[in-house]
C-alpha cells in the first residue's frame, strides 16, 4: 500500500521535478563542508562584493566581506531547512498528540483543550516574538520555540477533526470490544490512521515554517551573524540591493525554490493519498 | 422511426461485453458476451452475486457505464441500435422510453430540490410541457405509486420522507415520461422486509396496469421469485442459465443456480444441520481461468470444464444453460436430507 502511494506520487511530473530539486538542494546543503574549498566565514579580501562569474573563483560572487555567496547560501539552506524540519517535527508531535487526545476524549476535556488552541491562535505572532527576544535574548532556540508554539495549532485542529470522524468508524468500536482503550486506542488505531493526512500537512508546514523564520530573520529577530539563514541572507542582500543585486537575488531564488518544491510535494502527496484522485 | 413487427422483442441485447481498462494496461472484462431479450410487458429477473456484472449489463443498456468503459455488441430498442447512438439520440430514449430505478433511494434524489420539482424536471427535459401540466402529471404518478396525499408531497423534500416513500418517489420519477421499460437495480435491497414486499407488489401492479416491461436485477432469489416471469442467472460476466421462473426453480440445470437456491436458509421445510454451500469465492474478473468460470467451485465438475468454457445452449425449448454436465442435478439437495 505504501509503495502504491509512492508510485502514484512519483507518477505526477510536477511532483517529480519538485522532489528532484529539493533532493539536490538538501544534498548540496548537507555536503557543502566537504564539497567546497571555502568556508562561510573566511573572507577573500581580493574579491569583495564580487559579481557572479561563471568559471571564476566564486561562481555566484561574494558578499561585501568577501565571503563566497554560494557557500553562504548553502549554509543558509542548511539552517533554514533544519529549522523547517525540526520545528515541523515538533509541531507534528505536539499537534497530533493534542488533537488526537482532545478528539478521542471528547466532552469537557475536548472543550478545554481546544479553547487553549483558540487562545494561542489569537496571540499576535510578531509582537509575541519581539517580547520573547526582549525577555530571553536572541538565538536559534528561541526561533524553534516561537515557531513551534504557533505551528502546531493547525495540525491539532486538523487531527482533532479527523479523530472525531475516525471515532465513528466501526473498527474503533471493534477495538473497544477487543479491550483496547484510552491511550492504547489512540496509539494503535487513531494515530496510524491519521498518518496520511498528517504527512501531507507536515510537508506543507515545512515551507510555512521556513518562511516564518525568514520573516523573523529579515526583521532582525532570527538567526544572528555570522551564522546565516536564507532569511538573514535576503535581509543582508536587501540592504545592498541597488549596488549588488545578486546578493538579494541568489538567496531569494533558493528560498523560493525550496518553498515552491515543498508546496508541490505536499500537493502531490495529497493527490497520491486520495483514493478518489485515481484515474 | 418505422414501427417494428410485433414479433420483434422490445429490447434485444446481442453479444454485449463491457470491459474496464486498468493501470496495468489489460482491460478487465466484467460482462462477457451476453444475449438477452425482453418482450413488452415482461418481467425478466437478472440474478447474480456482487461483481458478476449484472449492474454493468444494466447500465450498458442506457449507456451509463462511464467514460472509461469499453462496450461491444449490440443493444436494440425496438430495432434501434443504442450502443452506437450519438448522445443526443440516446438521451431521447434514455429516461423517456427506458427508465432506471436505482438501489438506494437516498442517493437517487437531489436533497436540495422539492419532490415536485424533481418529478417535473423529467417532463421538462423530455416532453417540453408547461409547469402546470408537469405538476398534474407528477400528482398522477405519485398516486400510481400509492403515495398518499400527493399534493402535499410535491412540496416536500427528500429528507422529509421515509425510505419506502423515497423509493416510491424514485419509481414515480422513472414513470413520469411513460417509459416502456423499467430497469431496476436491486430496487428493494436498501429497504426493510415489510416495505420491500410493498414495493414488489407495486412493481407487479405497474406491469399489470401499464404494461411496463421490467428488467429486475437482484442478488436475492426470493425477490426474483416474487416478481419475475423469466430469469437469467449471471456468473462472472456471463449468463449461465436462463429459463421461465417455474422451470428454473423446479428444475435448475446449472449447478450454480441449484446452489443459489439451496444455500440460503428457508422459512419453510425441514431445518438442516448445515446449509449446503458453495466452496470458495466468486472469481476475480481480472484473473479468469480458461474454462468454465464456475468450475473451481462446482460439485459436478468434469475434466472438460477446466479447458473449455461451455456455451449457452438451449437444453429444451425456452431453457438455456451453459454447462457441460448433462445429467440431472440434485446432489446438493440430496446432501440436505
Amino acid at each position: 500500500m505504501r509503495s502504491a502511494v509512492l508510485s502514484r506520487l512519483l507518477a505526477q511530473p510536477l511532483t517529480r521535478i519538485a522532489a528532484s530539486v529539493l533532493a539536490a538542494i538538501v544534498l548540496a546543503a548537507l555536503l557543502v563542508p566537504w564539497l567546497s574549498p571555502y568556508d562561510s566565514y573566511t573572507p577573500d579580501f581580493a574579491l569583495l562584493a564580487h559579481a557572479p562569474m561563471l568559471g571564476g573563483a566564486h561562481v555566484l560572487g561574494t558578499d561585501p566581506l568577501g565571503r563566497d555567496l554560494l557557500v553562504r547560501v548553502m549554509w543558509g539552506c542548511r539552517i533554514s531547512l533544519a529549522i523547517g524540519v525540526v520545528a515541523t517535527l515538533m509541531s507534528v508531535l505536539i499537534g497530533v498528540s493534542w488533537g488526537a487526545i482532545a478528539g478521542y476524549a471528547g466532552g469537557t476535556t475536548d472543550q478545554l483543550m481546544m479553547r487553549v488552541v483558540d487562545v494561542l491562535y489569537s496571540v499576535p505572532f510578531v509582537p509575541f516574538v519581539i517580547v520573547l527576544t526582549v525577555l530571553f535574548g536572541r538565538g536559534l532556540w528561541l526561533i524553534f520555540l516561537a515557531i513551534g508554539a504557533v505551528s502546531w495549532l493547525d495540525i491539532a485542529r486538523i487531527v482533532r477533526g479527523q479523530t472525531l470522524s475516525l471515532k465513528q468508524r466501526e473498527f474503533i468500536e471493534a477495538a473497544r470490544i477487543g479491550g483496547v482503550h484510552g491511550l492504547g486506542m489512540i496509539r494503535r488505531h487513531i494515530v496510524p490512521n491519521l498518518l496520511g493526512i498528517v504527512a501531507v500537512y507536515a510537508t506543507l508546514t515545512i515551507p510555512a515554517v521556513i518562511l516564518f523564520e525568514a520573516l523573523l530573520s529579515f526583521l532582525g529577530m532570527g538567526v544572528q551573524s555570522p551564522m546565516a539563514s536564507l532569511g538573514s541572507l535576503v535581509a543582508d542582500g536587501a540592504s545592498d540591493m541597488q549596488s549588488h543585486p545578486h546578493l538579494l537575488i541568489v538567496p531569494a531564488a533558493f528560498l523560493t525554490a525550496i518553498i515552491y518544491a515543498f508546496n508541490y510535494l505536499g500537493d502531490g502527496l495529497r493527490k497520491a493519498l486520495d483514493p478518489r484522485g485515481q484515474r | 422511426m418505422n414501427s417494428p413487427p410485433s414479433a420483434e422483442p422490445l429490447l434485444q441485447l446481442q453479444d454485449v461485453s463491457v470491459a474496464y481498462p486498468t493501470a496495468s494496461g489489460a482491460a478487465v472484462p466484467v460482462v462477457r458476451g451476453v444475449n438477452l431479450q425482453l418482450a413488452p410487458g415482461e418481467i425478466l429477473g437478472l440474478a447474480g452475486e456482487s461483481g458478476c456484472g449484472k449492474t454493468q449489463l444494466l447500465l450498458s443498456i442506457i449507456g451509463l457505464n462511464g467514460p472509461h468503459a469499453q462496450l461491444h455488441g449490440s443493444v436494440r430498442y425496438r430495432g434501434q441500435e443504442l450502443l452506437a447512438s450519438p448522445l443526443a439520440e440516446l438521451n431521447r430514449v434514455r429516461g423517456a422510453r427506458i427508465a432506471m430505478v436505482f438501489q438506494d433511494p437516498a442517493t437517487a434524489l437531489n436533497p436540495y430540490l422539492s419532490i415536485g420539482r424533481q418529478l417535473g424536471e423529467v417532463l421538462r427535459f423530455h416532453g417540453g410541457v408547461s409547469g402546470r401540466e408537469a405538476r398534474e402529471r407528477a400528482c398522477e404518478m405519485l398516486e400510481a405509486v400509492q403515495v398518499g396525499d400527493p399534493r402535499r408531497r410535491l412540496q416536500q423534500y427528500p429528507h422529509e420522507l421515509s425510505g419506502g416513500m423515497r423509493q416510491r418517489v424514485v419509481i414515480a420519477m422513472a414513470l413520469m415520461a411513460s417509459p416502456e421499460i423499467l430497469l431496476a437495480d436491486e430496487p428493494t435491497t436498501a429497504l426493510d422486509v415489510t416495505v420491500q414486499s410493498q414495493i414488489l407488489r407495486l412493481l407487479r401492479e405497474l406491469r399489470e396496469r401499464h404494461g411496463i416491461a421490467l428488467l429486475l436485477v437482484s442478488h436475492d432469489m426470493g425477490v426474483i421469485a416474487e416478481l419475475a416471469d423469466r430469469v437469467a442467472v449471471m456468473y462472472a460476466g456471463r449468463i449461465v442459465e436462463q429459463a421461465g421462473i417455474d422451470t428454473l426453480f423446479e428444475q435448475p440445470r446449472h449447478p450454480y443456480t441449484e446452489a443459489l437456491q439451496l444455500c440460503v436458509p428457508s422459512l419453510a421445510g425441514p431445518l438442516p444441520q448445515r446449509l449446503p454451500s458453495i466452496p470458495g469465492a466468486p472469481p476475480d474478473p481480472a484473473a479468469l481461468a480458461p474454462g468454465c468460470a464456475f468450475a473451481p467451485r462446482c460439485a459436478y465438475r468434469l475434466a472438460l470444464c477446466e479447458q473449455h468454457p461451455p456455451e449457452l445452449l438451449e437444453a429444451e425449448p425456452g431453457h438455456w444453460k451453459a454447462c457441460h454436465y448433462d445429467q440431472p442435478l440434485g446432489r446438493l439437495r440430496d446432501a440436505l436430507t
Partner: protein
Amino acid sequence: MSSAAPARSLLRVTGLSVSYRVRVGRGRAALLHAVRDVSFELESGQTLGIVGESGSGKSSIARALLRLIPASSGQACFDGQDLLQLQGAPLQRMRRSLQLIFQDPLASLDPRMSAEEAVSEPLRVFEPALSAAERSARTLAMLEAVGLSARYLHRLPHELSGGQAQRIAIARALIVRPRLLFCDEPLSSLDVSIKSQIANLLMQLQAQLGLSMVFISHDLAAVRFACSRVLVLYLGRVMELADRDALFSAARHPYTRALLQSAPLPDPRLVRQRPAAALGGEIPSPLAPPSGCVFRTRCPHAIDRCAAQIPALRRVGDSLVACHRAEEIAAATLTSCAPPGR
C-alpha cells in the same frame, strides 16, 4: 470449557431501556427511546435471535449490553454481576467474555492492521503475559479454526474478500474464548454463496466452543436456521418472545405474522399460494412513537384499546406476546401463517 449446568441462564436482562439525545432542527434536542423495557433470558449454549426492521433498536440492545453506549435503565445479570453497573477494571475483565461480530467485516477491521495483528490484538490486551511465540501459535490456530491458512496472516483488510474478512472478524472475536458472542447482522453484507459458509462456520464454532449467542438479524430465514429462541422487536419494544418452533409455526403477534408474510420466498409456487401481505405503511419515527401499542398504526387488528393501553408481555400458548388481542387472533386463524412446506 464451560461447565455451567445446561438449564442455568447465562444472561438475564430485565427492563433494559436505551435512549439517545438527538438534535432535531436547530439547537433543539429530543430524547429518542431506542429500546424500551426489554427483558429476556439466554441460557448457556443457546442462541437468541433478535429480529426487527431498521430502527427497531436491535443493535442498541447489543451495544448497551456491551457497554459501547449507555443504558438509561435496567439490569443485565451475567455471571452474577450486573453488566450495566460495571466500571473500571471489572468492566475490562468482563469485556473478554462478551464479543461482537459486525455486519460489515471490512469496516470493523482497522484498515492498517494485518490479519495477524487484528486477530492477536485482543490476546495482547487480555493476556499480556503470553509470550510472542504462544501468541502467534494461538493466532494461527484460530485462523485455521475459521477456515483460513497462514497465507492470510499478513494480508491487510483491503486485500481480503468479504467472506475472508468476516472470518478474520470471527477469529478476532473468538480468540479470547468469550462466553457470549453477539452477532449483529453477520451475514447481511455477504454474497449469497458466502452466506451459507459463514452461517455454517458460526454454528460449528458455537458447538465446538460451547458458545452462547445473540444473533441480530432482519432475515427471518437466517434466524430460523441459527437460533433456538427468538425475540421480535418493534420500535424498541418486545412484541413477541418464543422458542423457534413455536414462533415459526404459530406466531401469535400480528407483527410477527406480517414479517413472516413479507419475507420473500425463493420459490415461485409458494409465492402464488401465499395470501397477499396486508401490512401497509412504515415503522413510525422513534421520536414520536404511537400511544398505547406501538404497532397499532399498522396493525390490521387494532382497536381503541390498543391506542389507550400499552399491552404487557404475557404468556399466550407457548409464546410471550405483547398484544391485547392475541387469543382472539389465534382463535380466528387456526391455520398457521407460516408458508406451506415444500
